[in-house]
């Protein structure tokens, strides 16, 4: 019977159900977790003996650049990223290539091999939504969704400037439906608009050109709209001034803006059974904190400002972050933050691309190599780990590399090992530039994350943060039957043997998607259907009509006709709308 399986005798780590390494059986019927299988069902079910192994829900990546125009620009501008990394076609799987920016097929297989089953694209420019959906549809196996880039959107800047919050909310709701996207992404608010004029914004209260909007007003406005609508996830913020020495202050001040805005998730979904309250309670989800935490005044005197930001977050309950770790080696930097990419170009002289997305946003791409011999890169490595180790409550943190900005997602196993093993960190300290130790607090940290913590950082909290905990991130009754079995015995865990950790995390013993084994020891064994999630946000028809009059009026500034703007559902693999704000 497809999608029916029993995973027996594993050590289960399911933080949303407060299960910490208990030996348990997990049963899945027709793709969903059930309490048990009847004797008849057991006869037809696949059975996996997970004795001595670690069992978690399937991995959930809440911030990764995997589909759309800028990822593809990265692929096109980097033939050198592809010629050494090839994947041969099999009867079951496609061929593929690419290391930091792999082709869509390879991307899906690589994620599945590591035990990930759900990945959200971190930045979808509205005009590029079709392209993004085409690539997500072609990415095998992974359940996906994308965040819509709205932090420099002309309509929203105008509505928020004029205090028309109802129209702003109606616009966001309409845009989510129109482009089949999931949440609000806000990149360098007010700054990317200035980049269209060769400029940026330098502080939270600097008004931008023409719209006279400040970053503070954009963050506050969007965070409020987010909760007015009851979006599944908090405002997803890429703060201003990213990647500049001294930027930690603006980051901290940005986090203060949504303090006091109450999280109000209004989703009409069936919730999987969990012991913890699976609904979100954060009003801001700051992404790649590492890149936003430099202290100092120049690259000569820069140091880690993570401690300061972490102290703030430790004392507040409205913030959740992802780390943006930099595990050394090749990367491709890609972001909606056009001016930040230009700064990196002037710093490195590398090839780069930049694009303006009409009335909506911008983006840039540049290849980058993080070197152990480089003082700043070494410091960044330490800072990335600090973000996850200095913030005490793991329910405020998510592990990412901002793939492929800090490094490709295939480096996650190495990052997990650093988090779980002080010996592993010491080893890297001994290999990299001394700035890593001298200019960060990481050397004094002896905290080692447990498998339970890792399950929070890579599954439970990612799913809970983005509002997917109703079906992902746990093994509770009714949850999707997505399971990862790592060949790692928690009873014999030795944090000094970090090579073993890396090996186990890099190739899951089994990756199970909706009750079907998709990968065994890293080898793809089946390629089942996937889903694409988006937010179908409801507002009053009247409000939507009023708003659309405006939008149509301003659409004359676009290079395409209004009728051609929406992304039809046929661009999505198994479109799965999530009803938002239905009961008002």
């Amino acid at each position, binding site marked *: 019977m497809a999608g029916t399986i029993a995973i027996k005798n594993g050590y289960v780590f399911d933080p949303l159900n407060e299960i910490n390494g208990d030996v348990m059986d997990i049963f899945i019927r027709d793709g969903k977790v059930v309490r048990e299988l009847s004797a008849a069902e057991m006869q037809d079910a696949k059975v996996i003996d997970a004795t001595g192994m670690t069992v978690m829900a399937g991995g959930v990546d809440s911030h990764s650049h995997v589909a759309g125009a800028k990822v593809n620009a990265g692929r096109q*501008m980097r*033939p*050198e990223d592809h010629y050494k990394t090839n994947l041969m076609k099999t009867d079951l799987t496609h061929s593929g290539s690419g290391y930091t920016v792999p082709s869509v097929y390879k991307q899906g297989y690589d994620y599945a091999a590591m035990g990930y089953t759900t990945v959200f694209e971190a930045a979808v420019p509205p005009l590029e939504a079709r392209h993004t959906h085409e690539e997500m549809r072609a990415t095998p196996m992974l359940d996906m969704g994308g965040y819509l880039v709205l932090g420099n959107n002309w309509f929203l800047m105008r509505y928020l400037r004029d205090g028309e919050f109802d129209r702003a909310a109606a616009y966001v709701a309409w845009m989510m439906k129109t482009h089949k996207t999931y949440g609000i992404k806000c990149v360098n608010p007010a700054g990317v608009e200035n980049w269209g004029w060769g400029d940026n914004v330098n502080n939270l209260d600097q008004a931008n050109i023409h719209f006279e909007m400040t970053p503070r007003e954009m963050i506050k406005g969007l965070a409020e709209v987010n909760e007015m609508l009851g979006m599944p996830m908090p405002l997803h913020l890429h703060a201003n001034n990213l990647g500049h020495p001294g930027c930690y202050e603006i980051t901290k001040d940005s986090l203060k803006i949504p303090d006091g805005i109450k999280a109000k998730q209004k989703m009409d979904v069936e919730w999987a059974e969990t012991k913890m309250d699976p609904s979100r309670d954060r009003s801001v989800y700051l992404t790649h904190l590492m890149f936003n935490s430099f202290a100092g005044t120049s690259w000569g005197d820069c140091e880690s400002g993570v401690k300061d930001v972490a102290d703030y977050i430790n004392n507040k309950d409205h913030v959740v972050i992802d780390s943006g770790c930099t595990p050394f080696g090749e990367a491709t930097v890609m972001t909606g933050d056009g001016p930040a990419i230009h700064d990196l170009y002037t710093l490195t002289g590398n090839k780069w691309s930049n694009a303006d997305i009409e009335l909506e946003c911008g983006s840039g791409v540049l290849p980058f190599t993080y070197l152990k011999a480089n003082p700043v890169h070494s410091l960044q490595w330490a800072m990335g780990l600090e973000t996850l180790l200095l913030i005490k409550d793991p329910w405020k943190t998510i592990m990412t590399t901002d793939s492929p900005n800090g490094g490709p997602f295939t480096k996650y196993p190495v990052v997990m090992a650093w988090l779980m093993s002080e010996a592993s960190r010491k080893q890297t300290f001994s290999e990299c530039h001394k700035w890593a130790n001298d200019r960060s607090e990481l050397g004094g940290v002896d905290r080692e994350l447990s498998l339970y913590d890792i399950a929070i950082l890579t599954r439970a909290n990612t799913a809970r943060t983005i509002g997917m905990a109703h079906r992902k991130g746990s093994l509770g009754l009714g949850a999707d039957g997505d399971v990862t079995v790592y060949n790692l015995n928690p009873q014999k865990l030795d944090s000094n043997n970090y090579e073993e950790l890396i090996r186990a995390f890099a190739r899951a013993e089994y990756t199970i998607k909706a009750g079907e084994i998709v990968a065994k020891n890293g080898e793809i064994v089946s390629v089942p259907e996937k889903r694409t999630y988006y937010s179908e946000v409801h507002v009053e028809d009247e409000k939507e009509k009023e708003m659309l009059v405006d939008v149509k009026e301003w659409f004359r500034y676009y290079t395409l006709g209004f009728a051609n703007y929406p992304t039809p559902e046929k661009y999505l693999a198994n479109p799965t709308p999530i009803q938002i704000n239905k009961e008002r």
Partner: protein
Amino acid sequence: MAEVVLILKKEIDIKLEAEAITPDAFAGKSAEEIGKLEIWQGPKTYPLAEFFDVERNEGDFAGETAEDTLIRIKGDMLRVKKIGEGMTAGRIEIEGSAGMHVGTGMKGGEILVSGDADSWAGMEMEGGLLHIKGNAGDHVGCAYRGSWHGMKGGHIVIEGSARHQLGGGMDGGEIFVEGNVEGFCGIRQTGGLIAVRGGALRTVGVEMSGGTLLIGGRIERFSPGFEYVGSETGPSFGDFEYAGEFKKFTGDFAISKRAKGVLYVAADANPGL
């Protein structure tokens, strides 16, 4: 040194990709095992024995190690790519011409091509010697498309001429050309030595920031980003001597103000400089 002889036994239509032809892959194998190594043709692989007779001069095996293994290839290899890719030791002698990517990424050992070599010979090479007795195509010792890091070490000697982008992105090692080169010789060079006894067309050393580049003949169009620093007579590098007076430049200042590339140009052949 044990000698394995490969004799081409049929005409090749779609080009082969034969990265399996290295002393490293052959070492310790019998003729039969060598014949089973996989060679790509288009989307398919075939055993090496499909295209080559595998013979040996003495003994049953190739050398115990790559170092003890000599591969002698008989026949025109212009349609066989990647011979000697990534090899670390031993020797390959091609009694004819070599296809694209001969000696790509090689780290040690020697390759002798008695005829011509097609493009990308010694691409991103790290060590060893690649000796081409005839002419070479484009991109000798160059970086792969999109990359800016070309040859890092080793030696390439070309007795004939080479074409465009010789030594592109070169970080180290040495390339000697007895004949001429065409455009973009030493583009983005950051280290190492390129010495060309003949002339060049244009864009010599553009965007170079380090390393040494010598052109012993006429440069048809000299690039504007170089600064004259003085003249030198008869510069020599190891076994290679270059008689006559040379004008010495540094650059290329067109991109970076801190460029440290050194460009020697024969004075007599370039009277206008």
